[in-house]
């Protein structure tokens, strides 16, 4: 053995407990490996049953009539499960955590039955899952999509009015998603309506569709404990710039404009405190540098339905340019937008491609999809591009992929 001192490392004495620790680690690993093998065998023997289930769910997606039959049996719970996973996989997991509040309340007006199936909510967001059924009408109004609505709090103060107030650009979180969407917001609340089940091809049989209203509270506002929801109209096809193809398909198929049905369907919902009472996982003052510019993540809050981050941005130490945003050089290209990633590679996107302007504290507010129900052990913020301005111009810098560990 070499007794010579090797830069100080030889001073490390081996612990007396090492042998015992190693033996116990091997024993635990042997035991856990055996348990995993038993679990694997059980899973393998369930594969046949699982394949049948996949065929079953596929049938719901592509055969509206089948979906309708299922709805009659299960009160829409299977369909709205799919709606949850389609829209936001994290929300889809909320069910396994027992955070879904069943409402199962229906109102009928103008021969259209609206059912609120269930709700998932925390302090910052509420997801309302509903089904629309036009079969009560003799002729049957088909292919219904939610068009207009109003949401109030328990005192009937108006939170959001969608009437004629939809925006032509959709949030980045909807990129690549199938479905029909409407997006609106005011200075306190933001809302996305997702309609699923729209099928011009199967129009004659498509009496039932389903969808989600996602209401998000902005800045310091919160979702109230009680909501009053008023549905005001439905339509057969949306006339929005991003829905142009579907709208044109409808007209070329039926040689008429889509019908709208006005009425009133009112719901009162007292929100279950399950998720609302959960305090967010909160991280503060995470300092880092990128491209010779200092940043401070002043707060990072993980709610069950969303993640909110506030990042203070600094000046570039080399050229003095002031950083004013992140990943905003090309609004048509989402590749430069910041995102979150966990240790399993799950990505969590920004909920909106536009990041609000920097505030008076030189801070940016960012909102991401939540990782809450994935229970990650590690979470990283990933930046690719910084946006600067100096006296003469605005410019952007590609900084490659910079990962900052949050937890």
């Amino acid at each position, binding site marked *: 053995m070499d007794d010579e001192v090797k830069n100080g*490392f030889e001073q490390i004495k*081996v612990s007396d407990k090492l042998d015992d620790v190693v033996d116990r680690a091997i024993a635990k690993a042997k035991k856990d490996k055996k348990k995993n093998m038993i679990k694997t065998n059980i899973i393998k023997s369930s594969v046949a049953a699982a394949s049948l289930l996949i065929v079953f769910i596929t049938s719901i997606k592509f055969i509206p009539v089948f979906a309708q039959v299922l709805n009659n049996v299960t009160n829409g719970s299977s369909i709205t499960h799919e709606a949850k996973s389609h829209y936001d996989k994290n929300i889809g997991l909320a069910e396994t955590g027992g955070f879904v509040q069943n409402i199962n309340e229906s109102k009928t007006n103008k021969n259209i039955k609206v059912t609120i199936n269930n709700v998932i909510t925390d302090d910052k967001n509420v997801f309302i899952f509903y089904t629309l059924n036009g079969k009560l009408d003799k002729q049957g109004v088909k292919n219904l999509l939610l068009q207009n609505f109003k949401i109030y709090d328990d005192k009937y103060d108006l939170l959001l009015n969608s009437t004629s107030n939809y925006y032509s650009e959709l949030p980045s979180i909807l990129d690549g998603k199938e479905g029909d969407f409407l997006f609106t917001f005011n200075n306190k609340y933001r809302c996305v309506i997702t309609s699923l089940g729209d099928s011009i091809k199967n129009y004659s049989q498509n009496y039932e569709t389903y969808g989600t209203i996602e209401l998000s509270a902005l800045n310091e506002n919160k979702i109230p404990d009680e909501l009053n929801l008023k549905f005001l109209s439905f339509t057969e096809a949306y006339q929005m710039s991003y829905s142009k193809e579907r709208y044109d398909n409808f007209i070329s198929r039926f040689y008429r404009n889509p019908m709208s049905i006005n009425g009133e369907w009112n719901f009162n919902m007292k929100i279950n405190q399950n998720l609302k009472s959960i305090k967010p996982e909160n991280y503060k003052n995470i300092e*880092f540098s990128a491209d010779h510019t200092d940043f401070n993540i002043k707060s990072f809050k993980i709610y069950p339905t969303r993640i909110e981050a506030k990042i203070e941005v600094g000046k570039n130490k080399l050229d003095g340019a002031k950083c004013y945003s992140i990943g905003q050089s090309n609004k048509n290209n989402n590749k430069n937008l910041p995102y979150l990633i966990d240790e399993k590679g799950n990505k969590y996107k920004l909920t909106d491609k536009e990041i609000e302007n920097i505030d008076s504290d030189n801070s940016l507010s960012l909102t991401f999809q939540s990782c809450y129900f994935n229970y990650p052990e590690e979470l990283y913020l990933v930046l690719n591009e910084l946006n600067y301005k100096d006296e003469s111009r605005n410019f952007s810098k590609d900084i490659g992929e910079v990962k900052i560990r949050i937890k």
Partner: protein
Amino acid sequence: MNDIDIVIKAQNGDDEAFSQLIKSCKEKLYKTAFAYLKNEEEALDVVSDTVYKAYMNINKLKNPEFFNTWITRILINNSINRLEKSKRIILVDEYEKFDDFNLDDSDIGVDVPKSLDLYNAIDKLNVKSKSIIILKYFQDMTISEISKVLKIPEGTIKVYLRRSLKKLKLELGEELI
């Protein structure tokens, strides 16, 4: 029986063979963990995690001849994770974007005297540089071996080494000359 045969036996479920493998490297694993964490209990925890993960995943090791490299990598990752959990070190590496220099070993340029207390000095370095110093000057690994353990190109390792030793030279005065 040579080491590769023992690894293959362990991969085929021979627990005695696995124990033999661990026995041959446990002290080095412990000392490496201790070099990061400077704490007996934490180093033991890291070794325990490493042995556990090695047992659970030994079947995934495609090349049995690289068992030592593989288990060292597991240990280093566990040590870094433990360090980061306790100190909240931010994983932004400013060195990741430099060009791949064409350096050879002589360009590293600094001969480290054996009396130098690198063991304490490495605490001034970032995690990646610390790993490289530990593997080179404690485990006597070559640049090529370090490259395999840390999965970093050899040129990058040389640059890290050069910068780290220069930094230590500044920190520790003229002792490095």
